[in-house]
């Protein structure tokens, strides 16, 4: 029995390319934001837990006052840590908020609007916070 004709072109797609290469978004934005979430998250564990433990359990909220804060901010290292905490938390949270918005606000126009509002608020408060930390002048305490 002859089998010649049947061995021709085994396992091949049909000539002329039967299949298309799928197109995804060509950007790497999602992978970067994913990695950023992990990296910032791990850093945030230290920063945020330290922050919480310090103010809530070591200092105690009852004892909080502007003087304490000013005292602490007098040290540039603490200010830097605060900037880091603020920045990472805001960006991490912002991207997290983006995930939720993209999930639950499906109408393209509305999604854009909601993103606009949320981004403005988060980035606005981030800038305001950094601005406060940078322009803060510890001498206000002594000046008083």
């Amino acid at each position, binding site marked *: *029995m002859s089998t010649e004709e049947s061995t021709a072109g085994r396992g091949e797609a049909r000539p002329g390319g039967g299949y298309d290469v799928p197109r995804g978004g060509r950007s790497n934005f999602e992978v970067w934001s994913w990695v950023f979430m992990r990296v910032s998250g791990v850093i945030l564990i230290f920063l945020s837990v330290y922050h919480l433990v310090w103010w809530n359990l070591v200092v105690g909220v009852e004892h909080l006052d502007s003087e304490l804060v000013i005292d602490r901010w007098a040290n540039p290292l603490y200010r830097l840590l605060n900037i880091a905490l603020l920045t990472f938390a805001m960006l991490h949270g912002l991207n997290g908020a983006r995930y939720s918005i993209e999930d639950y606000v499906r109408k393209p126009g509305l999604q854009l609007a909601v993103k606009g509002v949320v981004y403005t608020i988060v980035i606005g408060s981030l800038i305001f916070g950094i601005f406060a930390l940078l322009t803060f002048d510890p001498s206000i305490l002594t000046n008083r």
Partner: protein
Amino acid sequence: MIHTHTYDALVVGGGGAGLMSAIYLSRDPSIKTAVISKLYPTRSHTGAAQGGICAALANLEEDHPEWHAFDTVKGSDYLGDQDAIEVMCEEAVDVIIELEHMGLPFSRTPDGKIAQRPFGGHTHHFGQGPVRRSCYAADRTGHMILQTLYQNSIKNGVEFFDEYQVVDVLINQGRCVGVVAYEVSTGDLHVFNAKAVLFSTGGFGRVWSITSNAFANTGDGPAIAFRRGIPLEDMEFYQFHPTGIYKLGILITEGVRGEGGVLRNDLGERFMERYAPTMKDLASRDVVARAINQEIREGRGINGKKYVYLDATHLGKDVIENKLPDIADFCRTYLGVDPVKDPMPIQPTAHYAMGGIPTDMNGRVITDASNTVLEGLYAAGETACVSVHGANRLGTNSLLDLVVFGRRAGLDMARYCLEAEIGPLPENPTADIEATFAALLATTDGEPAARLREELQDVMQDEVGIFREGKGMERARVKIRELQERYAKVVVMDKGTRFNTDLMEAWELGNLLDLAQVTTESAINRTESRGGHMREDYLTRNDAEWLKHTLAYRDARGEIELRYKPVTITKFQPKERVY
């Protein structure tokens, strides 16, 4: 609503056989091909096949296609056509390599080749002892074949009509010109006009009550063809697989025995040693199934019940978890039995149709003993009867049949499509099926189809099952007649057009009834025992009178007429079969 489509080639059925031919057809973009399937193709029952697919690759030990051919001929109880068997066993090697090149993830040997294991009835040196010939992918070989073929169909851009049920074949001026399909989700009828049509609609195990077959295996293809005057070949040969899960019929692959599992009766005896001294538990299926039934009849079923044990506990956890994971899962899910620790309760289960639509080696449907081809109509897979399985199919040879003859049919259809013109549709192509559906839907006060189906399955199990006998089959014949009459007043409760599976089930019952009738008539007439057809009133094989294929026709009055066709014998002369 009626829609009309025109294609060059139509493949009816998206199982292994259908997809293999579709892949070959799709290689030539000038041939417009569509696959029509009542299930999403990946739901086809090919996916349930577990054990493996045989080819004399000789990856682990010496092996030759001739040995494979001999085993197949012997397995068929010499009823298989030897020219076709030779082709299948020769091409097996090539087609397995082709499947591997298509990406099929076979299990591997330590040196990276396709792994192979022993299987029932497969031997070296013409029957000297078991040989490792079955290529496998754990215990989901069929699943991997089906997935791989579907994947390649997508790759080749094959067009699919999923969940379209073909309900009629259009034959006009002596050739096949298309089919009529029912779009299940809408209830619309579609007329497909084509040059070549392939039927690969799988088996019809749902004729029996204990079966390894899916609900969808209702034999639509053969039944449709039969009603349009095409004969059915060797319908009395139906295989009962020795090891189905007790009561459920779910298959426990022969691979379990291939790996070393053994059958035990109530006394704990490994009884196959008595029935098949050389091959023991790996004897051919008909032999093992009969041995089990014999044990049960003689009271050695477990606790006197209708089952025996398949014991794999000595294989160890590793073999079971790695080589037979799905089986382990079935046993745990459905029986609460862990095959690592306990034996599995099994009983023979209706499994495979050796008979079907007669074809030649290129899948072309033939209509009589002199092999007259019905132009434009093809069949492949379990639906077809080439005949490579004769009176009894060897394990793993069905998957092989699908791919070898699916491929050959695809190639021949491609050739035919390039040279033939499209034939004209008959007048009013949907009239008959519309009348059928209308009648089914018209009844408001009658019996549910399910009741008839159950009665049919019970009588077939009892009287036209593993052991058969003239009087019992007469009873079955009468019962089927009665059921056919009652079928006229079956009630379809769902009168809607949207996804009306109630209507489809009722229509499928009509197919089961017709096929049961052909099976019974063919079996009553064959007064001998051969392979899957075992008669207690004619215990021996009778080559002098019965070394021939049955061809069953439906005559004008709806009666069944039986004719016969010689068996092709080339190298292997009929001998007594001992394992």
